[in-house]
C-alpha cells in the first residue's frame, strides 16, 4: 500500500509503477486535475489545505477497506497533493492492480469516491473576483 500526501507535483508515472505486479493483469487509475472552471466560474488556481495526519490515516483506511471488499486487490496507491495548484495540475492519483479488469475499475472508483467523502482535505477555489471553500455552504 502506497499512501502519500505531498506539497510537490505528483509523479503520475511513479504512482502507476508502484502498483505494477506480475500477478496482476489489470491496472486502473484515476487522476483528478484542476479544471479551469467550476459551476460556470472561471478558476484561476486552487489551494488545498489538509489535516495531514488524519488525511493520511483516512486514505490508508479507505485503501484497507477496499482490500477487504476486493480481496484479489494486489496493490493500491493513493497520492494526494496539497498547497497551491494551478490549472491542469494533478490533485490526486489513485491506482490499483488486480488480476482481472472489472475488479480494478470497481475498486478504484470505490477508493476515489470514498476519499472524497472522508479525507480531511479542503479545496479553496480562487476566481478572478474572489474565492470559495468548495462544498462549505449549501
Amino acid at each position, binding site marked *: 500500500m502506497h499512501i502519500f500526501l505531498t506539497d510537490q507535483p505528483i509523479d503520475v508515472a511513479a504512482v502507476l509503477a508502484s502498483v505494477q505486479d506480475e500477478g496482476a493483469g489489470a491496472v486502473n487509475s484515476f487522476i483528478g486535475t484542476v479544471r479551469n472552471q467550476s459551476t460556470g466560474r472561471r478558476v484561476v488556481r486552487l489551494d488545498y489545505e489538509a489535516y495531514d495526519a488524519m488525511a493520511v490515516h483516512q486514505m490508508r483506511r479507505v485503501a484497507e477497506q477496499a482490500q477487504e471488499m476486493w480481496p484479489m486487490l494486489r496493490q493500491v496507491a493513493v497520492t494526494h497533493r496539497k498547497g497551491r495548484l494551478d490549472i491542469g495540475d494533478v490533485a490526486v492519483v489513485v491506482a490499483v492492480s488486480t488480476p482481472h479488469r472489472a475488479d480494478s475499475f470497481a475498486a478504484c472508483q470505490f477508493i476515489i469516491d470514498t476519499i472524497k467523502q472522508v479525507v*480531511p482535505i479542503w479545496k*479553496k477555489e480562487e476566481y478572478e473576483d474572489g474565492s470559495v*471553500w468548495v462544498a*462549505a455552504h449549501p
Partner: protein
Amino acid sequence: MKLKIALFGIAKEIVGSSQLDLTAPDQQSVTGLMDQLRGQYPALGELTSFAVAVNSEYAAADYRLQENDEIALIPPVSGG
C-alpha cells in the same frame, strides 16, 4: 476541562485561528461540544455540515471527550 481544537479550511477562517482553546464541562460529549461551538461561532451553524475528529477518527455524537484527546473540527471536505 480545557480542550484544544484544531481548525481547518473555512472553520479556521470563521474562528480566525488554526487552534481554539476552550473550556468545556468534564466528560463533554461531541454533540455538546458542537453545540458549544455553534453558540460561540454562529457561522459554523451555516455550514453544509461539520464533524468532530478525535485522534484522526471521526467521533461518534455520544463520545465523551477527554483533556488529552487530539480534537479537530472538520468542515465539509472537498479533496480529490
